[in-house]
């Protein structure tokens, strides 16, 4: 497979684009691998990619029950940011941001990463103080953040209701200029292609149905396409983390699965050239390159594996959007969909060893998994390759709940629907 470049683009254009090769192979599973990654989402693919690139390990299979890009990787609102306050999160997500900034070059695949800025609106002086605190914490850690006053918000987001008589008048906000959006499918495809080029087998339509465990040690997986032996197994399956780990004998996890909906409108002319989040309710909105407004808000609020949402949240999200941008009233909704989030009890992910030897877990991403894709893969690869977490994910252990080292960015306690 050749590298993508202007020359092979021109060459393929001249032959009518009939000779493009598939971006990754579809191999039959081999009887054994050094490492098997369960879950071919962004995190699993990134893990395989960095195992190959950073650790020189290539005898790897990524096993996916559906197809690449069919899970939460294709269901998010594509927002990338690293505006966290607690040190574990700040450093982890900032490392992710640095990987995002070089991703297209690194993968030789255009992920359309657009650093258009992420603006969080403030509606009370107290919120402005909280943003100043968070922004300062970020800047001390080397992350970019700026506090914006009311006039600057009005200048950057012309569609916003800036009226002093608004239900929740806007008093200012915080911006992370390096935040933005990326083309989510391209990220999945780019990592799949990058891993495949380095020799990783990506096996789609292959469901893991059990683990082979011998004396407290994982030695392979059972799948719908036969048994596969492995020296190490990494699990990165998002919403079904509890179910997959139960097959490995871990009965309970500090995780509940919840449903999050996302929405896209019909395409319109350029209206929002940044990412804006509402501070008086819960809404985040941006405009895709095709012109559709992409937005989302709260989760449905109760355990769900349904992959489709209920009406009250649609109404809530629509009313938040209208409150912020009254000019959206006539815009029609094109599509909406749902994804299953593995909500951890403290709102922070888990990239960790497990009680089963050689079995590693990557989960609990709540609804922040997309932006974490590169850092998650990078840290999980390190954890699997060396058997120990990297400094960047040392706090994201599975046993932190038991030991009292939870990382609760929002400070709401062990109530997953509130994170």
């Amino acid at each position: 497979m050749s590298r993508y470049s202007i020359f092979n683009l021109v060459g393929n254009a001249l032959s009518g684009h009939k000779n493009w090769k598939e971006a990754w192979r579809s191999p039959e599973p081999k009887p054994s691998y050094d490492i098997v990654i369960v879950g071919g989402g962004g995190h699993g693919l990134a893990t395989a990619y960095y195992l190959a690139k950073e650790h020189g390990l290539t005898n790897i299979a990524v096993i996916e029950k559906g197809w690449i890009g069919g899970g939460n990787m294709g269901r998010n609102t594509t927002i990338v940011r690293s505006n966290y306050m607690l040190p574990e999160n700040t450093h982890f997500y900032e490392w992710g941001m640095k990987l995002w900034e070089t991703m297209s070059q690194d993968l030789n695949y255009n992920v359309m990463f657009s650093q258009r800025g992420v603006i969080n609106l403030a509606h009370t002086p107290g919120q402005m103080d909280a943003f100043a605190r968070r922004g300062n914490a970020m800047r001390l850690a080397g992350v970019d953040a700026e506090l914006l006053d009311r006039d600057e918000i009005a200048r950057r987001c012309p569609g916003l209701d800036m009226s002093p008589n608004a239900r929740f008048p806007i008093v200012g906000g915080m911006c992370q200029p390096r935040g933005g959006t990326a083309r989510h499918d391209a990220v999945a495809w780019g990592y799949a292609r990058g891993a495949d080029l380095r020799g990783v087998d990506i096996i789609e339509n292959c469901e893991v149905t059990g683990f082979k465990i011998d004396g407290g040690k994982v030695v392979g997986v059972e799948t719908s396409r036969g048994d596969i032996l492995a020296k190490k197994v990494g699990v990165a399956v998002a919403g079904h983390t509890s179910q997959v780990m139960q097959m490995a004998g871990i009965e309970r996890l500090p995780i509940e699965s919840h449903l999050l909906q996302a929405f896209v409108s019909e395409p319109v002319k350029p209206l929002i050239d940044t990412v804006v989040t509402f501070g008086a309710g819960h809404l985040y909105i941006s405009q895709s390159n095709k012109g559709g407004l992409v937005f989302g808000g709260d989760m449905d609020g109760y355990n769900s594996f349904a992959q489709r949402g209920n009406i009250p949240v649609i109404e809530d999200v629509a009313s938040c959007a209208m409150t912020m941008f009254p000019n959206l009233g006539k815009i029609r909704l094109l599509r909406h969909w749902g994804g299953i989030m593995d909500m951890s009890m403290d709102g922070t992910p888990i990239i960790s060893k497990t009680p089963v030897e050689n079995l590693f877990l990557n989960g609990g991403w709540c609804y922040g998994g997309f932006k974490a894709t590169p850092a998650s893969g990078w840290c999980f690869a390190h954890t699997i390759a060396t058997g120990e977490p990297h400094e960047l994910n040392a706090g994201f252990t599975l046993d932190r709940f038991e030991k009292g080292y939870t990382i609760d960015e929002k400070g709401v306690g062990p109530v997953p629907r509130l994170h």
Partner: protein
Amino acid sequence: MQIDCPFCGKRDQSEFTYSGDATKKRPDHNDQDPQAWFDYVYQRDNPKGAHQEYWHHTSGCRQFLVVERNTMTHKISSVQAVGDLNKGSAE
């Protein structure tokens, strides 16, 4: 989704507040086993299928209910008042 409240009848889901897994039993206040508290506070079965859960009828009778709902289909198979069940505790 509608929940058939034993006190108020069938009401829209938006009248209720979800309060989590109802199978969790709070350990005795004098229980000093950290494992029991860890299990109660953090660990969840998180079933894909039948789930027993608390719902608070916030905009109705303000009673706590125990609802058995399928997490894949949202089909509700039973609704009971908390008082009608053995001692449990809400969030």
